[in-house]
């Protein structure tokens, strides 16, 4: 892991929100990420597209250390993910320290993963109260505002099983926002939704982007990527095949694999 000849320093001056250098990840013998280099600037909406199995979700999960990186370096807001560097040695972070860093990174999952035994309101206040040490009253007030923002103020007392997929996903977004993250990760947020419910979720995400939230979005919604995205990366086989502005990459792909993929999804 420390084989790099020129180990970068821990804190990067004038740093991007996320920076990856030669990130590799394998599950057993399968190398899912084969050296990813990319940079996500602050306030940017960064879209990751590619066929399934291309490693885009895995990369997203590496950013908040749900997956351990095998090689390379990954920084979030100038800090190394999962490790502390002293000299040219890396020290694994304790669970507590990893959890601390995750507070600043919101994540939205394909399968929503709401807590089914809690109401929408309880889902949203759970982390602020348990992790952030906020008082229940204060957390509830903020949660109500967040639920209003995602258009679900009237569903605060409903359990997830009483909500549609689109509503669940919007509650999940509110839950992630409740920790006031500086970065939001979206892992195919609309892939499990009925087509007519996709729009509401994308509207919420569009609103977030307008407010200047840094967002990394793994998606198959090319329309969203073109309209809202500031940068786009096409991944295939664990490598970045093509990167650039969404309109350029989607409108005028340079690489054969990108062309082949886009011809199927557009």
């Amino acid at each position, binding site marked *: 892991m420390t084989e790099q000849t020129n180990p970068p320093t821990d804190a990067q001056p004038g740093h991007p929100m996320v920076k990856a250098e030669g990130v590799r990840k394998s599950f057993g013998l399968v190398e899912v990420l084969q050296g990813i280099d990319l940079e996500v600037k602050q306030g940017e909406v960064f879209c990751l597209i590619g066929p399934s199995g291309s490693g885009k979700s895995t990369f997203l999960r590496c950013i908040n250390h749900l997956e351990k990186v095998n090689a390379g370096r990954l920084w979030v807001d100038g800090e190394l993910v999962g490790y502390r560097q002293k000299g040219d040695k890396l020290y694994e972070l304790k*669970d507590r320290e990893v959890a*601390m860093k995750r507070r600043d990174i*919101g994540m939205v999952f394909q399968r929503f*993963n709401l*807590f089914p*035994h809690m109401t929408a309101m309880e889902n949203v206040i759970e982390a602020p109260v348990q992790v952030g040490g906020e008082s229940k009253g204060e957390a509830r007030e903020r949660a109500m505002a967040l639920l209003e923002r995602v258009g679900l103020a009237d569903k605060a007392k409903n359990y997830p099983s009483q909500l*549609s997929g689109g*509503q669940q996903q919007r509650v999940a977004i509110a839950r992630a926002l409740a920790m006031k993250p500086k970065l939001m990760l979206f892992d195919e947020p609309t892939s499990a939704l009925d087509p007519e419910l996709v729009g509401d979720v994308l509207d*919420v995400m569009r*609103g977030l982007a307008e407010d200047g939230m840094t967002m990394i979005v793994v998606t198959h919604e090319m329309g969203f990527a073109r309209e809202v995205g500031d940068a786009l990366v096409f991944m295939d086989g664990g490598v970045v095949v093509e990167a650039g502005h969404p309109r350029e990459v989607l409108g005028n792909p340079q690489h054969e694999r990108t062309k082949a993929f886009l011809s199927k999804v557009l």
Partner: protein
Amino acid sequence: MNSLHKGPATPGQHEVIKAVPVRHPGRWVGAAVILVLAAMLVHAILTVPAFKWDLVGQYLFDDRILHGLLVTLELTALSMLMGVAGGILLAVMRLSPNPLLSGTAWVYIWVFRGTPVLVQLVFWNFLGVLWARLSIGIPFGPEFWSQETNILIPTFVAALLGLGLNEAAYMAEIVRGGIQSVDEGQHEASQALGMNRFDTMRRIILPQAMRVIIPPTGNETISMLKTTSLVSVIALEELFRAGQNIYSRNFQSIPLLIVVSLWYLFLTSILTIGQYYIERHYARGSNRALPPTPVQRVRGLFRGIRSKSAPRSADAAVHGGGEGGGTA
């Protein structure tokens, strides 16, 4: 309400369906057969003089029996409490990434699940024979405090240790199954929110695991209620031993065993009802609407006979409001 028809294919209001329900003649025949068999059995039991029903009635509320009943209840409650608490602790240890914790839990479960509870009971009872005094002090060094084992562990405590520690091993496996039945996404969502392992377990995983843990735990409790009769071998006067003590003097073993069995049956019935309501409580959030309780069902049946139920209005219609654009 209004008879305005728009378009050709719009029919008027449909009347509520009043169809003849499917008949089940087989059920009526079966019920008749079972009724006759039951009548024969009851008749046989009541007419055999050896049952001595008058004695059953006489001893049912005997003070010694009632005292034994109390001990049985205490023993069941306390040992299940020990079992559940210990079981949760052991299950969480067993699933911990810390090899020291998971190894310890594994060995505990291996020993306590692998030996008969009867042997464990006798062992705890005879602990005083093995070690006459128990003490607290520096290992292999001086003692600060010591006490005679038989005073420290009277028969009731020995029974409690025997039953509770054994139960913990079984409960550990039940709890582990429950924890592992919770979707992996729940762990990920809690981790992504920055929750630590302990809070994730306490707030997210265990409450969801409860739905899977509760039914077998009810089963274990019912089983425990009857297993407490084993402590009669270490001469603790619980329900079964109380009955034994009486019939060892008056030789009326059958009536007294019936007395004891009636009490066990009564208590397990109460536990069964309790279990139903606890399961219902933990189904919250996973079912859209809770099923009616038996009381509600009976009430509904009477209401249903008087008038056919009106169609329920579909609530929670999908709210598709796209007012999601943020204004911060």
